[in-house]
């Protein structure tokens, strides 16, 4: 077995360097998010999204863009989406009287390009709805963090709760930072991915914390750093195996799941990697800094009984 050979890793020796790295990554992510901004999709910005299949295969993106610009639709982006003849068109303009809006675009495009065009997907989101969706998305992420904070506080002690939330915020900020850096689109499914990452990363952290608590109760004379090192080692094999199986499933969605799920699965893959890393190298050292000791878990134990 691979992991038996590397069974005893002295994790605390990496904490300092990796914590500085994490801090730098968080600051860099925040910097990018603030100054570069996020590439919001129509869900959050409003506008029209069209997934079009051009039957004539000799069309170029430039021609499609030219034709759309002639219609005075405001800011327009066109990019290839999945297969060669499939394009994703994003139009900034939101038409109030939209009953003919989509059809007229299709008519003009097909006459300009001289080819039948199949609008496979149309999403049209008004400014009011996009504002609400953005608020709901933000609320959902905040709420899930708060719920996790509360749950861990109830099940463990405040020290654990603090450390776990710090790791979650670390994961969320870095994942969104990478999306901002790559200019990947943020839409509803990315928010769903972020929420799932919150759940997954918590899942990983909780297993290590559970073991730390157990060992804290067992050994009274050992320092918390030593205990968390033992616990991390004991659960390492599980942490890695579960990350591998989850990543196998996610890679399968990313590669074979079609263009629509690409952003979602990419965010999840990032989240699983960052989340696994943060459970070991962010949550655990922060717990060490809080000087949690046997007293705190025994006190909690007597409260529960």
């Amino acid at each position, binding site marked *: 077995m691979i992991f038996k050979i590397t069974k005893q890793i002295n994790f605390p020796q990496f904490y300092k360097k990796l914590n500085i790295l994490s801090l730098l990554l968080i600051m860099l992510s925040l910097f990018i998010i603030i100054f570069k901004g996020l590439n919001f999709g129509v869900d959050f910005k409003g506008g029209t999204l069209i997934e079009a299949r051009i039957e004539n295969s000799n069309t170029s993106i430039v021609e499609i863009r030219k034709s759309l610009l002639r219609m005075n639709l405001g800011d327009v982006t066109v990019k290839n989406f999945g297969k060669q003849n499939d394009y994703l068109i994003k139009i900034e303009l939101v038409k109030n009287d939209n009953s003919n809006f989509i059809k007229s675009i299709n008519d003009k495009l097909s006459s300009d390009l001289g080819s039948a065009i199949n609008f496979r997907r149309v999403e049209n989101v008004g400014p009011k*709805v996009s504002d609400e969706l953005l608020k709901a998305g933000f609320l959902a992420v905040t709420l899930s963090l708060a719920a996790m904070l509360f749950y861990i506080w109830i099940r463990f002690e405040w020290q654990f709760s603090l450390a776990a939330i710090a790791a979650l915020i670390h994961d969320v900020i870095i994942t969104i930072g990478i999306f901002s850096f790559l200019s990947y689109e943020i839409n509803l499914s990315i928010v769903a991915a972020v929420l799932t990452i919150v759940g997954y990363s918590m899942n990983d952290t909780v297993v290590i914390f559970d073991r730390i608590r157990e060992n804290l109760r067992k050994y009274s004379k050992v320092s918390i750093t030593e205990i968390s090192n033992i616990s991390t080692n004991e659960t390492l094999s599980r942490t890695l195996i579960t990350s591998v199986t989850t990543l196998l499933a996610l890679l399968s*969605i990313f590669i074979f799941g079609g263009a629509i799920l690409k952003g*979602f699965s990419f965010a999840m893959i990032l989240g699983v990697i960052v989340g696994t890393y943060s459970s070991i190298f962010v949550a655990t050292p922060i717990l060490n800094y809080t000087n949690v000791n046997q007293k705190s878990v025994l006190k909690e134990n007597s409260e529960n009984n």
Partner: protein
Amino acid sequence: MLYFSKIKLFTIYLIIILLSFFAFLNFTEDSKNFFLSKKVNLGLDLQGGSYLLLEVDSKPVVQQNLQQKLLKFRKALKENNIKYQNLKLVNQSISFLIKDEDLKRFEQFFLDKDNLINTYYTQYRAYEMDYSIDNNLIKIEYSKFGLIEIKNSTLDQSLEIVRRRIDEVGTKEPTIIRRGSDRILIELPGLNDPNRIKKLLGKTANLSFRLVTEEETTFGSEVLFFENSSDQLNISKRVIVSGDNLINAKPTFDNQSNNAVVSFSFDRVGAKKFGRATTDNIGKRVAIILDNKIISAPVIHEPILGGNGQISGNFTFQSATDLALLLRSGALPAPLEIIEERTVGPDLGEDSIKAGSISLMIGFTLVILYMLYKYRQLGIIADLALIINLIILLGILTILEATLTLPGIAGIILTVGMAVDANVLIFERIKEEMKIQKSNIHAFDIGYKKAQSAILDANITTLISAAILFFLGSGPVKGFAVTLGIGIFTTLFSAYFFARHLCSIYVMSNKDRPINL
């Protein structure tokens, strides 16, 4: 932890068999039986279709209601001998001046719980309208509850009209429900091009017959445009008959010109009014007006007494059909605006199902192979548990007749990846215990016990995420939350009951042999 009573085993396997049966139903032909007909629904993103969110603007209705209130007010003030000045409607409120000595009488009649103008809602303990007095100027506007009532009734009426219009078009199984205080959500599965429905819903369909006039009348007049051209006519504001008096409308062809027309009939009141107006105004033109646009304005050659008539315009048969449909289903009380639309074509839906199934199968296979590689014999148990997990997950989704969306499929695949976690936690724990414990049975037993708390915590955190997604997410994302959430329960079931039983059989038959993990 390794002992199972007979009754427990019976229950576990009964649940598995039952759920497998429901899962299997998805692959059978349609059935009429209530239980046998259960299937997982495909979301709009998988079967194709349209999702529309409409918003009702109730402001014009408030304005209209106030207009009527104003007339009633004038009458009531006179009846109560209250002298008023400058009674008018400004900014969604009625205002007028009265003298000090009348103030008391005004309040008396306005706050009388049985008065006919300002309704008292016993359920809210509040009046329909609020008033304020500022230097003898009385300002009356709708109270919070009055506005709620208006919004509610406007939305209910709109919902009814929308339902009629969509039913007349005849799409399969539309979902039309109210959302909040001023929105209507429509789901039209299988609809490829929502253009026609969007057009039909975009029209208020206020029909009126009014005379074309040159001179000023007491009712006043306004200039309106034709629907298909920039021509305009001066139209009297007096309505002869409105669409409310229409009882039937259908598209036909005109006998002489062979053009598509809409023929209609009035009810008795409408027929009478129209008969009188056409008798009195021979030689003049009567304009047929839909949503403030003139459709046509024919000259009255003879009195039309039978209550039947025809609307001609530049119709195709399709547009005549749609106009007739609009007239039959009635006018919306307020204009509707489409504030969100999501349409997926059926071919994209099919592609998504294909891509979803392929990635599910590949992800599943990879996880199964990886578990076999990691745990050998126990890997088989984990894999069997994974298969059972998937089957009962599908079974529960079938019983709930849940809607499966593309993100929902992603949720299932993710469940596959994360489901093995419970067994990994247990196996790793057993591995540790094997080093300490003397017997295999002990190691398994304690391994299961010790893994419990970690498994519980790990799954509850994921469940919290799924719950928040379910309550705050919309449409496809909700589908993801459903499969992810149910996946947690099936995972716990398959690991803690099914796999544990297999483990107990395994360890009993390998009591004394060393088990290689």
